[in-house]
């Protein structure tokens, strides 16, 4: 049988909503967007340093009007939730980056994840104890 047709492959377009295709992709996008809050809070800390450097009056105003504002506190609590998700995803990804071998066996990834959470908890406690 003779066919004169040249193959004309069909290329399916990638929808812009690909990250809504399943819950894993959605959670991936949430993980990536935690960076908005990580970066945003870093800029907020920069502002805190700057206001402090500007002297006691400016810092006093900043403390009363900004730091104690329920809106700013609320926004920080939202940021805290996203940053916590960032912490969880980072700790859980640790065994992917650092595979530890003991002879022919990989060290149980749960051990590495657990160690990361332990370090996180200890550091968090230290920070809070030192600050307060």
């Amino acid at each position, binding site marked *: 049988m003779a*066919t004169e*047709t040249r*193959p*004309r*492959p*069909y*290329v*399916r377009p*990638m929808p812009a909503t*690909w*990250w809504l*295709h*399943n819950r*894993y*992709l959605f959670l*991936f996008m949430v993980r*990536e967007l935690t960076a908005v809050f990580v970066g945003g809070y870093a800029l907020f800390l920069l502002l805190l340093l700057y206001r402090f450097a500007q002297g006691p009056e400016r810092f006093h105003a900043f403390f009363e009007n900004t730091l104690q504002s329920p809106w700013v506190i609320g926004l920080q609590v939202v940021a805290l939730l996203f940053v916590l998700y960032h912490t969880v995803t980072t700790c859980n*990804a640790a065994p*992917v*980056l*650092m*595979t530890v*071998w003991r*002879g*022919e*066996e990989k060290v149980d990834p749960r051990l590495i994840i657990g160690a990361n959470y332990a370090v996180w908890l200890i550091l968090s406690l230290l920070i809070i104890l030192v600050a307060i």
Partner: protein
Amino acid sequence: MAPPSSDGRTVTLEVFRYSPEQDQEPRFQTYTIPFREDWVVLDALNYIKDQVDGSLTYRWSCRMGVCGSCGMMVNGEPKLTCAAFVKHYYPATIRVEPLNNFPVLRDLVVNIEDFLHKLTEVKAWLIPKQEKPVSEGEYLQTPEQLARYKQFSMCINCMLCYAACPVYGLEPKFLGPAAIALAQRYNLDSRDGARDQRAEVVASSEGIWECTFIGECSRVCPKNVDPAGAIQQAKVSNAQEWWRSVLMPWGGKK
């Protein structure tokens, strides 16, 4: 094929059809066929081809999860159709499409040339540090050395990971999960000496650095190869090498 022992139950498949000679756009064709407990989606497709519509085109070979040729999208998920049970989806309609992110040649058959080209680009084969004559014997390896790369060697080139990878879908130049995992498989092999050659491709702008560690490749892999892990580990070792060469240019290669 013997007619299925029918207890009257039926299952409906919606199958992606595309004929390059006739169709401008693909279409979906619905087939309602007898339901059988022990069927996989590939059995259902074979039934359709044998009993209902001989024009349906798809690839398959071993039907036991080894050859890697029957990968398709089943209800939007890349699956080996020989391992996806119909009863798992029944009584819902099962939608079968060709693997995502690849050009469709006909019906469920995709063009895999790009992937095959990438496999050769990363030199996914053993290149010994020093070739030695057969008379000198084998290239020996301890079980411990084998364990380092064994997981990555389980790849059957089924390309489910490419169908699952949004980065590959958005940027077809990306080397992609399986090719990098296989490069890593040889890089980690104690008998191999071509890591530097592969790095020219693997650590290029079309390689590991495009990956955003979405992890879908590892989730859909039917052989538990974990390409996402291979890519992240390749990032770590290549990043170490890059910084070493920048900070200690006199040090040469390790």
